[in-house]
């Protein structure tokens, strides 16, 4: 006879409720009839794009719904206890001790007021009645297991004193504190740099294996989930698309939607002829240094690179590498403290306030967060019209016509969207507005600062295709800031790799990505998860061997 499953979800419906007194079934379903079975010690990967209901399902598996949501049907049975109808005290009693949760942002999910070890010990002491001293000794063991540096000492720090990757491991350690049967991992490495991500993935997987813990591993990254999970479920709009063992799912996805998720990485902008040696670059950074505040440390140290007309230069690096700062210096948003920025061979003043209107017009920017970069009170038409009026002086009917032209260029129907406001648009549409606003000035250079990072893969691909098409039509140049190697492969002609405020390596895309010369570039490229179940083992083994 087979063992009963640890977690069994049947026909689960979770909906956003319009109000407490409305009838079940009247709200919008976030989870719509999901079935899920998890055996002891098994790791199930949940993947899907944002809004697919992954987190809602993960929390639902703990018998928890966020404010404004509620269970509207079906059941969640954890080890014989039905959670959706259980008393709150019963549900609370299972948490930490039997089911634990690891959140996406460890930095935001640790209480800033307490030391890590106190937060680790909270529920082992409270719910299991163990002595604080015993639990603290235990914590050191778990920290060591999670491969945290200084396991004896790190628990006595406050969250703000510990780096992001370490915090994420400390949070996993905290989830393990009561040795639960099930841990929900909700995008635990999404906020981390790729080189940090590897360490955390390795530590999580080993710990889950060592303790025989079952896990729901939620992520939007296929490559990551294929390292962690025994089985994968693909979700979309709160419904199951497809479910299969990891190997099968990778080798032979059945559904169109699943295949489209796989295919995203296939896009590549058409290659361009390499410019001759003696052609003057359009934008040139020459030994630029910069710091925040007069006495701050230099965040850029003698950074030099060239962007040629009609080409795309990708500036790649992890957080804190100085890639965005370099872009801000080129824009003049952060005045450089040394070196030079040339446009067409002419030096630009460090501060944008000292630049002429013509100089400003030639360099425009698109921001990462389209949400915050667009004024929510303004209509789309007005948002695009503003730089047109400022730079080109168009007025009246001509202005409206040009706005409509730009909206058509970014594939947004002006008849539909002209009078809408940003709040009524999707993330991808908002980013298109950002592009139109930058193009309105008729610039020669557009700085794209992580423009696809906040978007789902399919949507991001649409944006990349649009940018590539506009480049072909208009001959503009892109300075493309990103941390994502797949994006670089898709859009770049030339690549600059940055670390600690310096350029590590630079050259044409094929040379830097396929034949890297510097150790850092190699490790950065090797850290990018691959859609191959053996990738994590291989990279971790190589790392150990390299030491």
């Amino acid at each position, binding site marked *: 006879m087979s063992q009963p499953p640890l977690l069994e979800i049947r026909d689960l419906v979770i909906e956003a409720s319009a109000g407490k007194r409305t009838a079940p079934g009247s709200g919008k379903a976030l989870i719509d009839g999901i079935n899920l079975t998890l055996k002891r010690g098994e790791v199930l990967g949940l993947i899907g794009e944002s809004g697919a209901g992954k987190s809602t399902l993960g929390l639902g598996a703990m018998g928890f719904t966020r404010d404004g949501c509620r269970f509207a049907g079906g059941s969640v049975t954890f080890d014989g206890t039905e959670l959706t109808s259980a008393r709150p005290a019963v549900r*609370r*009693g299972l948490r930490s001790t039997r089911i634990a*949760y690891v959140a996406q942002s460890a930095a935001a999910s640790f*209480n800033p007021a307490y030391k890590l070890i106190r937060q680790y010990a909270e529920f082992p002491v409270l719910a299991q009645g163990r002595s604080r001293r015993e639990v603290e000794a235990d914590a050191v063991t778990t920290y060591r297991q999670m491969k945290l540096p200084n396991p004896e000492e790190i628990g006595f720090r406050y969250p703000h*004193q510990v780096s992001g990757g370490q915090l994420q491991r400390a949070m996993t350690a905290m989830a393990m504190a009561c040795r639960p049967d099930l841990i929900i991992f909700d995008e635990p490495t999404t906020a981390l740099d790729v080189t940090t991500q590897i360490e955390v993935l390795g530590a999580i997987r080993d710990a889950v294996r060592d303790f025989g813990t079952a896990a729901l591993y939620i992520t939007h990254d296929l490559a990551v989930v294929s390292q962690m999970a025994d089985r994968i479920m693909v979700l979309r709009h709160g419904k199951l698309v497809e479910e299969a063992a990891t190997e099968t799912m990778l080798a032979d996805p059945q559904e169109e939607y699943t295949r489209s998720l796989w295919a995203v990485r296939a896009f590549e902008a058409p290659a361009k002829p390499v410019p001759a040696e003696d052609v003057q670059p359009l934008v040139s950074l020459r030994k630029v240094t910069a710091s925040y505040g007069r006495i701050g440390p230099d965040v850029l140290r003698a950074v030099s690179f060239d962007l040629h007309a009609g080409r795309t230069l990708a500036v790649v690096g992890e957080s804190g590498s100085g890639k965005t700062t370099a872009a801000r210096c080129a824009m003049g948003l952060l005045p450089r403290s040394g070196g030079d920025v040339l446009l067409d061979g002419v030096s630009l003043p460090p501060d944008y306030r000292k630049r002429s209107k013509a100089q400003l017009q030639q360099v425009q920017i698109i921001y990462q967060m389209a949400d915050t970069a667009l004024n929510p009170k303004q209509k789309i038409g007005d948002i695009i019209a503003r730089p047109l009026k400022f730079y080109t002086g168009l007025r009246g009917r001509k202005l409206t016509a040009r706005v409509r032209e730009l909206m058509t260029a970014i594939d947004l129907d002006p008849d539909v969207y002209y009078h809408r406001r940003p709040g009524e648009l999707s993330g991808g549409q908002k980013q298109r507005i950002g592009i139109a606003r930058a193009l309105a000035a008729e610039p020669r250079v557009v700085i794209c600062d992580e423009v696809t990072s906040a978007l789902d893969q399919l949507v991001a691909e649409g944006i990349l295709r649009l940018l590539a098409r506009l480049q072909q039509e208009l001959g503009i140049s892109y300075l493309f800031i990103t941390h994502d190697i797949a994006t670089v492969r898709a859009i770049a002609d030339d690549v600059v790799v940055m670390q600690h405020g310096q350029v590590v390596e630079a050259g044409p895309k094929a040379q830097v990505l396929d034949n890297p010369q510097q150790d850092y570039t190699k490790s950065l490229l090797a850290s990018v998860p691959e859609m191959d179940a053996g990738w994590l083992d291989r990279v971790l083994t190589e790392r150990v061997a390299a030491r």
Partner: protein
Amino acid sequence: MSAVLNMILQRVFLGLLTLLVVSALVFVSVEFLPGDVAEQILGQSATPETLAALREQLGLNTPPVQRYLAWLGGILQGDFGRSVINQREITAILADRLGNTLFLAAMATLIAVPLAVGLGILAALKRNTWIDRWINIGTLTAISFPEFFVAYGLIYVFSAKLGWLPSISVVGSDTALSDRLVLTLLPALTLTLIVTAHMMRMTRASLINLLALPYVEMARLKGAAQRRVVVVHALPNAVAPIVNVIALNIAYMIAGVVIVEVVFVYPGLGQLLVDSVSKRDVTVVQAACLIFASAFILFNLVADVISILSNPRLLHRSTK
């Protein structure tokens, strides 16, 4: 740690500097009044000879800066000078009155702060329900009425109709503590009604912000019950904003009690100030103003220090 000590010392220094500026302002504003102290003391009976003699006696012929420094020097040694009207030592007059005012403020604080913070927590937890709405309506209504109206309203109900509490609060240095508590209750309740809304709203707003944060959700997901979520996980992070608004209100209860004290004929600093203004007893007015200013500066200073000490980011610098 030394960085925190530095910050605190800096705050103390700034507080003292503010106090110095305020003392100068208080002194100068009296200087600008038409006529001088000698004219006011002598009033109608002034003749050029008596005025000159009195000015000589009071030292009014020395330059203002010198008099200011002498005044300040005296205060630093606990000597506020003498009343122009009855020649009594101001320090002695103030001592009793200040004690009474502080007693009233302390009593109002003890009622108002737990009440306001408690209501704020309740309103935050039950936000957008009828409990939240009634708490808001109640406290905001209380603060919307003028102080004297609230005071007379309470007198009408508790003294005139119910007869439970006295309508005037004359206490002396020989009043027993139990009598004093009863006598001070109505003015303390009036102050409570006036200050609760601020503190309640701030507690509610800070807590609602905090309850939406990931680490509070994390506490729930770790299995913490409501009480633990609020008391252990949320409130310690709300100390800074709440303490700041509490400090402002305590300072207000010391410096802003003028009307309440007058209504209840309570012998505190506020009433002294009103009396002294009407008698043109400028030296006493100066002293009272300085004490009110000190109360504001002191309580804000304390709030600043508590805010600094409650922030682990400041207390425990990064060792990364």
